[in-house]
């Protein structure tokens, strides 16, 4: 009887409850599927392309870092094992001259240890990447009301990862006729959003959303040290690779460790199987 009661109660509630299911009021958020590129760091043996990540760091440093912080990154990370400026001669990245000079180019805020006054000094490898704004409120105030997101984990914080970053950076285009984008906003099909409010054309509104970030990259905006032509696609691809490394700096160590672990486990399993066959040989089961 109880089960019937359950069923009747449930059905009764369906009849009475009406549209209360959570998620009912979800807006029709859409975004275009990111372009899928092939990356050197894919697959069980994939590694970061060091030159590419170095170029990507330059794009971040000269373009992105004007607005985006990377709170989880320290200059020493650039020279650690698996990092873009790793030099086997300097296992301690704090001693690497390349890392020291990269850090030295950047001013960080500090406190004078004698007077306690706020000062600015060249960064050291042990310093965190400095944030472009004093705090999130200042960042939001200077950027149309919303602080630009931290990029440390960006490659792991969006569906599609580096493909998404590449697609977003190269995906800025003029809005199709019928789509009115307000000043200070930019149409991007890869950015998640709901354009039905801006749409006066025929059919469903286009995929994508409005992003407050103006198109950040332009041909020749960054001069690559290795002579790579500085196209928007190249810049976007390289900075996406840099962000993929920054989000997962221990990836190469993980895959190398994994290879050893897999070989060990396969041999171990094989030996256990042979032991099993031998021990159970004379048992009917």
């Amino acid at each position, binding site marked *: 009887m109880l089960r019937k009661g359950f069923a009747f109660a449930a059905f009764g509630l369906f009849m009475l409850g009406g*549209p209360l*299911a959570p998620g009912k009021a979800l807006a029709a958020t859409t975004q275009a599927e990111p372009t899928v590129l092939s990356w050197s760091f894919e697959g069980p043996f994939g590694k970061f392309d060091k030159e590419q990540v170095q170029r990507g760091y330059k794009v971040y440093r000269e373009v992105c870092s004007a607005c985006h912080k990377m709170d989880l990154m320290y200059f020493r990370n650039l020279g650690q094992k698996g990092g873009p400026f790793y030099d086997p001669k300097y296992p301690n990245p704090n001693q690497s001259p390349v890392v020291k000079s990269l850090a030295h180019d950047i001013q960080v805020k500090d406190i004078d240890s004698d007077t306690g006054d706020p000062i600015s000094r060249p960064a050291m490898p042990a310093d965190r990447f400095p944030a472009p704004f004093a705090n999130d409120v200042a960042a939001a105030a200077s950027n149309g009301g919303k602080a630009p997101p931290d990029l440390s984990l960006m490659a792991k914080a*969006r569906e599609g990862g580096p493909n998404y970053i590449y697609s977003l950076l190269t995906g800025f285009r003029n809005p199709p006729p019928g789509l009115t984008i307000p000043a200070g906003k930019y149409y991007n099909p890869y950015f998640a959003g709901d354009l039905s409010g801006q749409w006066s054309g025929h059919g469903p509104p286009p995929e994508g959303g409005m992003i407050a970030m103006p198109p950040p990259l332009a041909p020749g905006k960054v001069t690559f040290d290795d002579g790579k032509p500085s196209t928007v696609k190249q810049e976007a691809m390289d900075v996406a690779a840099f962000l993929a490394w920054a989000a997962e700096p221990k990836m190469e160590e993980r895959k190398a460790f*994994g290879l050893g672990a897999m070989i060990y486990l396969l041999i171990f399993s094989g030996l256990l199987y042979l032991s*099993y066959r031998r021990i159970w040989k004379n048992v*009917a089961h």
Partner: protein
Amino acid sequence: MSGHSTYEPKTGFERWLDTRLPILRFANDTIVTFPTPKNLNYWWTFGGVLAMMLGIQIVTGIILAMHYVPHVDYAFNSVQRIMRDVNYGWLVRYMHANGASMFFIAVYIHMFRNLYYGSYKAPREVLWILGCVIYLLMIMTAFFGYVLPWGQMSFHGAVVITNLIGALPVVGPSITTWLWGGFAVDDPTLNRFFSLHYLLPFVIAGVVGLHIWALHVPGNNNPTGVNVTSPQDTVPFHPYYTVKDGFAISLFLIMFAVFVFYLPDSLGEVVNNVPANPLQTPQHIVPEWYLLPFYAILRAVPNKLMGVILMFGSIGTLFVLPWLDTSKVRSMRYRPTARIYFFIFIFSCLVLGVCGAHAPDDLVIPGATAPQFLDANLDSYVWLSRIGALYYFAYFWLITPVLGLTETPLPAPDSISTPVLSHPAAAPAGAVSSPEKRG
């Protein structure tokens, strides 16, 4: 099966200890000489897998707790510090995070095996109930643990789940405030969740002790479901099952390693890599995969309180299963009709899982035009989850009791040894049936 111990102390020290604390006798009776049915298949190895996973989760968890900071301002970054600056911290954390999923994969296989072979039936009801208690504790521990990294999904998941308690009439809101330690999910909530997340695994370990104790009184069930009748039906646990379980555990570890080393983020939500922000709600709030079926049941009901009752009822039902099943035959090997309903049950659980991952209004078949029925489109996931939930409950409360009375089971063998007489090793010495398989 238990009862008289065959342990014989060999050295003077063992004799001395045996009359004071017979711990070696206990260990010997439990994991060495314990008579185990000789026909257990690989579905029986998941108990050992679960014991190993509990050990892995506790060891990696203790190490993570050495570096983790349970504070809303530092929790997210302290987890990232473990990933970046702690030696092999990425390994420990990925093992712990993926280990939770592996733990649930193993527990679900363990439970489905139990349902298929009728292991919950007399005299193993207490063993089954203790298992249900462990499962419930696992769900709570996993939920508390998921909150700790303090990402977007951690925070908003905690908000959604704790708010469910608020659906209780009269006392709900007060209990929610008491759980939160304030008027919103905040620092006190994170602190107590950390404390409980550290506590509960040891409670689980304690109940696992009782679970094993309750196992060793009636002994293992087996694929035929027939009771052990003679010593020929059993083999000592060691070395026969230590090696078989060991082999299965090693294979399970290979799968675990594939996730840890090559797909460490595949089971998680990308949104949880964004720090918690109470002012910005993610587009979809979904639990981890292992709780999706219950989430689907919760959302299948338009009334919040009724949804909460059904969700807890879906787990509560498991506790009374031994008394819902009217069939005297344990193993579904000999219950062909029950077997069909059982596989539909597994399928309904998977369907519920898929429903839990989608927004209720999403269309199951995009583009198909289905009529509106009551409050939602018939093609929507909310209706699919209603069908799935209905079958889930019907399976336990209707099909299982009725089927036991109406079906005609196949004849079960008289003993465990009967169906294996055709095995090569049962043939007389010298009559080698498949020489290529010998030594």
